[in-house]
């Protein structure tokens, strides 16, 4: 089921590794995170962050297994395969959903089959809702957790115009909503922080809350990103930096401890 990821020119690593390390570096020490289905990049990112700069980071595997430290990442990120070493197996309706509603967990990452400039996501249908071209799985907890969790991260291993669209066919989960103060006006905390793709890293422009290019992966140009993106990509005032290089130590820990079997490649 696993694919292969391209090498990152000059960085001595592949694109999956660059994405995991970039995600990891965005995690502060006070991160309290959990993960849903098919979330290999974030899962590896949390695990790497805890082994490097964020030792206090909380990660609840599958939203259940607090402080889990499994030997390997398996074929599903929503299963007991990830629960080894946990200090608590939380109950879903009472523990997890209470902690989520109370923002005791402060970090969640999601990806959608479609994502728009405001970090909203669609995982429900491609095409008209009532007669869809593709019936996708459904948003699961996206519509819930997007509303409840203050620090939202997005990622995609398929940065192309089918994924990054100007208008979602359905909004399964909210990011910054309609932009500006829309999200805050609904009483929701925080909002999307970054979107990490196989081409670049976006942050969100402070006023409009639209995706803005924060860094380009080596070998990728602004034009490449714009061509792969169905909405107009905002640029920072200064020159766009290159995504920072993973350290030898980060790559070593990722390859030998965090994900020795390369489960993260299931996203490629």
């Amino acid at each position: 089921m696993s694919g292969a990821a391209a090498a990152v020119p000059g960085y001595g690593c592949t694109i999956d590794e660059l994405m995991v390390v970039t995600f990891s570096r965005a995690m502060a020490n006070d991160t309290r995170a959990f993960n849903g289905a098919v979330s290999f990049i974030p899962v590896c990112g949390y695990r790497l962050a805890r082994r490097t700069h964020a030792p206090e980071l909380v990660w609840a595997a599958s939203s259940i297994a607090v402080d889990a430290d499994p030997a390997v990442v398996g074929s599903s990120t929503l299963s007991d395969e990830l629960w080894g070493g946990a200090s608590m197996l939380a109950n879903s309706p009472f523990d997890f959903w209470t902690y989520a509603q109370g923002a005791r967990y402060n970090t969640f990452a999601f990806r959608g089959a479609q994502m728009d400039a405001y970090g909203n996501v669609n995982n429900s249908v491609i095409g008209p809702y009532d007669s869809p071209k593709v019936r996708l799985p459904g948003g699961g907890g996206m519509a819930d957790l997007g509303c409840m969790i203050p620090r939202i991260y997005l990622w995609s291993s398929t940065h192309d115009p089918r994924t990054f669209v100007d208008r979602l066919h359905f909004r399964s989960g909210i990011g910054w909503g309609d932009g500006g103060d829309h999200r805050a006006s609904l009483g929701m905390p925080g909002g999307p922080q970054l979107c990490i793709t196989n081409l670049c890293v976006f942050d969100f422009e402070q006023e409009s809350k639209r995706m803005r290019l924060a860094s380009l992966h080596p070998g990728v140009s602004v034009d490449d990103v714009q061509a792969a993106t169905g909405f107009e990509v905002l640029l920072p005032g200064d020159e766009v930096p290159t995504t920072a290089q993973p350290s030898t130590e980060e790559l070593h820990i990722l390859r030998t401890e965090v994900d020795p079997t390369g489960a993260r490649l299931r996203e490629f």
Partner: protein
Amino acid sequence: MPDGATVALGGLSMNSAPMAFVRELVRANKRDLTVVAIVAGMCVDWLVAAGCASRVVAGLVSFEGFGLAPNFRHATQSGKVAMEEYSEHLLICRLQAQARQLPFMPTVAGLGTDVPALHEASGALRIETDAATGRPYVACTPLAVDVAVVHVHEADVAGNARVNPKLIWMDSEIVNAAERTIVTAERIVDTGSFTAEPHRTSYPRFMVDAVCEAPRGAYPTSCFPEYGHDGRFFEDYLGACGSPADFANFFERRVAGPTTWGDFLAANDPQPVGDGGEVGS
């Protein structure tokens, strides 16, 4: 379980679905079922494949990293089966409103998304504004469930039931909401097993209407901590979807055809029990 019933299935995604019971629904050729499954996969796909389900009420249906649930996908795309889509928490809140006999359960889940509008016409969800604070919320109305079916590790003949090592997924929400509950159990045990460790009981006997023994009854989904999901089954299942004839053959041979549950297991040759996660049990 009459045709046309609303049946809620336990488990979550690749985990702990009551597959042995679902297979019996397939074999009994049930029709027009409304299937409630908060986050589901194979259990829904079997019922859709066999033509048992006319409506799916869910937050998510997929095979996760293995792919989309193929029969669910095609039947909902063609309109043959209706998808009543919620988010996970909106569905939990509807079940909780039912269980607690409340006019609605409030939540912020779903605000700012397109999900609540799907249920405006039916009135199942309403966006309202709190009188005192002006804050918006979604009022989730009760969702009536005829029968809940959940899989557990151990049950006694009175109906006391236990999930090992702990009730983790959202099965309690469907049990609490349902008119009747059917439990399938890896093992039938004496009541003494419950009185010896009463803090580990998941459902008391008065919440359970029937108990059926079903060893490895969640296969091919997992039953933590005793066995994991069988990825090979998921791959074979998806691999058979190339043509309707191939799939019909596969479904008959590997799912609906075997007479007993033991025959079914033999046809699928699962790995020995004990290959699942071995965490904290």
